[in-house]
Every structure is written in structure tokens, then in C-alpha cells.
């Protein structure tokens, strides 16, 4: 049974990736390009040691976004608010980090906790609205994303929390002092963010929480059936609220790798779009901490390879097509796998019944 699950859990994503590659190949051939050559270029560039390091750093951010989405998915919550939660986390982490002066490790811890609190509290608004007022978390989160952007844009004003370095047009927060920065370590001629270990810790904690704790059991139970969980004594609305906050707190960590190890300040150059990425990755990785890691790495690998495609006469948007078809195929693949499983189960049950009937005769 368990072996079966791992087998199908691996086959489905692989099938999705392969069918996406086939589809992209057709597009490339129609454009007059040789798909094999293009894939070779992508692979050789993407596996260049220096790029690998860069991909790993990006994977950390995507991984956290994926875990944040997965926590929501376990509860059937569609956390499209990851973007706003990440932004609040990175911004307030940067502001608090720059405002205080503490011994090295404590300083970093404070920034991490601040970011989680900011992301979690921001998500709590959507959680409260859902539990108390029945507002769909999708709607409220989309709105909250906009509001988060507006609040930060306001607070980054020069007279408030932002600064504009001489000659720059990029508004940013004051830099975090050395004690609040996280070191990088050398690997393959590149600099790996040590925030990687925080991401690994989050992945392990997520797995333990989900599979080895009462809380995780209640969470999964509520996600599977709200009513059943409630009638068996689980505080289901409370679970929804806590899960939302937890998902937001993890989302608050998404930007910290870049913040703590690279830029040391939050600025207009911080990326957006983590919500859709996170949701796609949770889907692709089947909400499993290891699966999400591979999905996140695949994503950052593909994105990394995009610029090199421009020099091969292929529009870099082909990478987005690839990502899109992977997500689409994965949904189909899981559905197919689910039906196969269902049929097998039915067959097994049917056979057992027949045996039972025979025995009783």
C-alpha cells in the first residue's frame, strides 16, 4: 500500500514533466527550433556549478512558498495571499532588523520571528473573515495582497521608514547591521545563503507537525471533512484559523534568504508573484515536504535557464509555457492516478466480498 503510494506519487509528476516537455517540443519545432538542442543548452547552463548555487538560493524561497501553500491545501484552503504575507514579513523583518542592535544570533532570530509574526498576523485577517464572517479566503487574500503593497509603499515613504541612497531611484529600508545578517557559505564558486538551513528545518517541522502530532491529525481530519471532524470533537473553525495563520507565518519567511544574506534591506527591487508559484509547487509536490523541494528546484532551474534561451532565438516565455503545462498535466495525471487507485480498491473490495460469500457457503 505504502509502496504503491510512493510509486504513483513519483510517476504522476514525472509523467507531467514529460508530457510538458513533449508539448513544448512541438511548439519549438513549429518555431523552427530544434528542441533537443534547446534542452541541451538549458541543461548545460542550468547545471553550471555557479548557476546551481543561484538556483539553490531561489529554491529556498520557492520551497517556503510551496510549504506555506501546502499547509493551506491540507485544510482545503487556497492561500493566494502568500504574496502579501511574504511582503509583510520581509518588510517588517527588514525594518525591525535595521532598528535594533542585538548580539549576532539573537538579532537574526528577532528578524525571523518578526517576519513570521507579520506574515501570520496578515493572514489572520483572512482567517478571521473566513471563520467568523464566511468570506472566501481567495477573495479576501487577493484584496489583502493589494492592501499589503499599498501599506508598504506608504511606509517606505522617505519621511517615514524608507531611504533613497544618493543617485538611486530605488526606495529601500535602512540596511540591517552586520549582527543581523546571515552568512553565506562557499560552494562551487558561488555563495549559498545559510537561510537554507531554516528552510530545511521548516520542511522537517512541517512533516512532523502533520504526521506525528495531534494537531496535525486534527488539521488533516478537518481538511478531509469539516463536519466529521467537528462532530468528533475537533474545534474545526479554530483549526481553520490556526492553519491560515501558520501558512501566513511560513509565507513571511519567503523573502528572508535574500534579505538576510544578500540585500540586507527591503526595496522596490524585491520580486512578486510568490503566491501562484507556491500554489503550483504545492500541487506539483503533492503537499509533501520532499516533493515540494524537487518542484521548487525544477521551477528555479527552469527560470534560471530562461535568459540563455534568448540567445538561442527562443523567447524566454517558453519557460512559462513549460511551467504552465507541467501544472496542467499534473492535475490531469493525479486525477488519472486517483481513478486507477479507486478501480484497484473497488476490485480488491469486490474480490474480498466474493471470497466472503464463497466462505459463508
Amino acid at each position: 500500500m505504502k509502496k504503491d503510494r510512493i510509486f504513483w506519487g513519483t510517476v504522476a509528476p514525472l509523467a507531467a514533466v514529460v508530457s510538458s516537455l513533449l508539448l513544448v517540443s512541438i511548439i519549438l519545432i513549429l518555431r523552427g527550433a530544434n528542441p533537443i538542442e534547446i534542452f541541451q543548452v538549458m541543461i548545460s547552463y542550468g547545471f553550471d556549478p555557479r548557476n546551481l548555487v543561484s538556483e539553490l538560493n531561489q529554491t529556498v524561497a520557492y520551497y517556503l512558498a510551496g510549504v506555506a501553500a501546502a499547509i493551506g491545501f491540507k485544510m482545503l484552503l487556497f492561500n493566494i495571499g502568500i504574496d502579501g504575507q511574504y511582503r509583510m514579513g520581509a518588510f517588517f523583518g527588514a525594518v525591525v532588523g535595521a532598528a535594533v542592535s542585538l548580539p549576532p544570533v539573537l538579532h537574526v532570530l528577532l528578524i525571523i520571528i518578526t517576519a513570521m509574526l507579520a506574515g501570520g498576523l496578515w493572514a489572520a485577517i483572512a482567517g478571521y473573515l473566513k471563520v467568523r464572517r464566511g468570506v472566501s479566503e481567495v477573495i479576501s487574500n487577493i484584496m489583502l495582497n493589494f492592501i499589503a503593497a499599498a501599506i508598504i509603499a506608504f511606509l517606505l515613504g522617505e519621511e517615514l521608514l524608507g531611504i533613497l541612497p544618493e543617485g538611486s531611484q530605488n526606495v529601500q529600508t535602512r540596511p540591517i547591521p552586520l549582527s543581523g545578517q546571515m552568512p553565506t557559505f562557499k560552494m562551487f564558486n558561488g555563495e549559498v545563503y545559510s537561510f537554507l538551513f531554516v528552510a530545511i528545518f521548516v520542511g522537517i517541522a512541517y512533516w512532523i507537525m502533520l504526521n506525528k502530532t495531534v494537531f496535525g491529525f486534527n488539521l488533516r481530519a478537518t481538511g478531509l471533512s469539516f463536519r466529521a471532524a467537528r462532530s468528533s470533537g475537533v474545534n474545526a473553525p479554530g483549526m481553520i484559523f490556526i492553519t491560515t495563520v501558520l501558512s501566513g507565518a511560513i509565507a513571511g519567511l519567503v523573502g528572508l534568504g535574500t534579505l538576510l544574506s544578500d540585500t540586507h534591506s527591503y526595496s522596490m527591487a524585491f520580486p512578486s508573484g510568490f503566491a501562484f508559484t507556491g500554489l503550483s509547487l504545492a500541487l506539483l509536490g503533492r503537499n509533501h515536504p520532499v516533493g515540494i523541494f524537487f518542484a521548487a528546484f525544477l521551477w528555479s532551474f527552469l527560470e534560471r535557464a530562461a535568459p540563455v534561451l534568448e540567445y538561442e532565438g527562443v523567447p524566454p516565455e517558453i519557460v512559462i509555457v513549460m511551467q504552465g503545462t507541467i501544472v496542467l498535466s499534473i492535475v490531469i495525471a493525479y486525477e488519472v492516478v486517483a481513478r486507477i487507485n479507486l478501480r484497484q480498491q473497488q476490485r480488491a473490495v469486490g474480490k474480498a466480498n466474493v471470497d466472503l460469500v464463497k466462505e459463508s457457503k
Partner: protein
Amino acid sequence: MQKKLLGRWGVFAVAATLAASVVTGCGSDSEDAASTAEGTIGIAYSLGGRDVPGFNQLAYIGVEPLLAENPNLELIESQDNPTATDDQRAERLRLMAQKGANPIVVVGFTYAAALGKVAPEFPDTTWGIVDDSSVTAPNVHSIVFKEEEGSYLVGVAAALKSTSGNVGFIGGVNTPLIAKFEAGFIAGAKAVNAKIKVQSTYISNFPDFSGFNDPAKGYEAAKGMFENGADVVYAAAGGTGTGLHKAASELKKWSIGVDADEATYPAHADYVSTILTSMLKRVDVGVGAFVKDALAGNPTAGVKTWGVAEGGVGYTTTGGYIDDITSKIDEYSAKIASGEVVVPTDPKA
């Protein structure tokens, strides 16, 4: 979508109107050297790439005549994406340098941190960055503009043409850079009519940069301003400006474009009768001059600021709607060039 507003033909149309000034604009004596130039020019665009009219496209238009003159000259291009971090932008620039491009034009201030990292790694490559002067390296040339001065001039035009004493400003994304446009426009309008009312709005807040490419919201914002009494509205908002021009042509009010001569955009063909003028930000001139000098072997480092005096900003007279007031506008222009008038860069000041 709007991205494709200005297709290939549009590029040539705008290029044709601007090409002449690119050649005369840089006025260096490196003409002969450049006409036999070979090598590879790189352009790293900001969001949207070359097809976004105005800003990004002007960088391309700046090098286009050089490419046409020199068959041995190649161009490689790359564009930013919204999910990119500084680290990824740095890698984009690194790749371009590794591909042998020199000089490389980097369009937009979001590249500043990335360029600060990459430029020292490639000391033999000449880098030019538009809209930022915070990167100081011996091989980095900053191309910055006094947007407030050009906006001041169209502010003067707006106030002179307004009969209601009420004009409007639409900014694409609320950033310090776009605030310079707003500040100049307000100052110019007030210079003509101290009591003029200026309505002001921005389409989006960063990190949501959609405000530079959202004609539908531009239309609504402009319509609101016109209904609120404005009769001239200026949009410093990239592709969003198309919505303004549409609203203006429907309501028979004036609109003012930005960056390039918006009355020559094919997508604006239906609205030309109400496009009063456009504020020119000659990214093409700045980029063209930089690339030409670099190709001729005289790369210049440091900051080059293009204002009214340098011919880096100005206004257009397409359509002839402001022919009656150009002499007045030019008076203000002369005052700015001579330093008699100093245009503010902060709208709140």
C-alpha cells in the same frame, strides 16, 4: 495585449522621427570610428522588454541607427521578469557580458544593485545604466534625465491651453522617479497660473508595476479627472497613457503623452486630434551617445545628466495644437537652460 501596441512598424515610425536627432544629438567627432564599428551591443530591458512603447523601446531606438549603419554590429537583448531577484538580474547581466557584449546598456533603476555587483567582475566591459546614478565604478556610465524639466514645459503648455483652470496628472507607479514628473508638471502649470488646480493620481503602488501598462485604469482615471473639471491631463505612465488619450478623444479634452511622441504611435491613430503634446525623455539620445562613444573607444564613466540644456528632455509639436504658444514655452525653456528657473523634483515641496 497592450505590450504589442507598437509593433515592428511602430518602432520604425518612431525611429524615423527620432533618428536624425540621435545622430546630431551626440555631436561627438567619433562618427568615422563608429561607422566601421563591429562587435556586440547588449541591452538589458526592464519589465516588458523592447515592445513596451516609450522607455524600453527608446533604448532600442537609440542604438537602431548604429545597427543600420554598421552591418558588422550585432545586438543581443534580454528582459527582466517580475519574479526576478537582484541575484537573478545580476546573472542576466553576467551572461550578457560573457556572451561578449560590449558596451551593455542596462535599462531601469531596478538593475542598480545587480550592476553594482557585476560591473567590477567585468572591468573591460563598458556598462551604461539608465535612470540610476548610484553605481560608481570606473566602467559604469549613468544616463539620467531631468524629467522634472520636460514635465515643467508640458505643465506650462497645459496651463496655457486650459480654460477651466483645472489640469490633471496621472502617474503610472508611485515611485520617486515618477514623482519628478509630477513635481515638474505642477510647477510648470503654477508658473503660468498660480491659482490653477492640479488633480493628481497614481495607478498602482510598487511592487505592482502594472500601472505602467494598464490602459483600462488609465481610461478610468482620466475620465474621472475630466469629469471633475480638468481639460488637460498629462500621463507619465507608459502604456497606461493610451487610456488617457482614448478618454480625451471621447470627451474632446486635451491629453499629454510622455517619453516619446505619442501622437506617432500607430495605436493612437484615432486619438491624435486631442493629443496636445508629448513630454520627451530622450532615452534614445542618452543611450545612443553612450553606445557611440563606447564603440569609438572613448567610453565615459560617471554621471551624464540630460536636461533641457543638454537636449535630453523637451516637448513635441505634432499636430500643431500648441503652435500658438511655443514661443511662450520656449521662454520658460530658456530660463531653465540658463538656470534662472530651478524645477523642483518633489511634488510636495
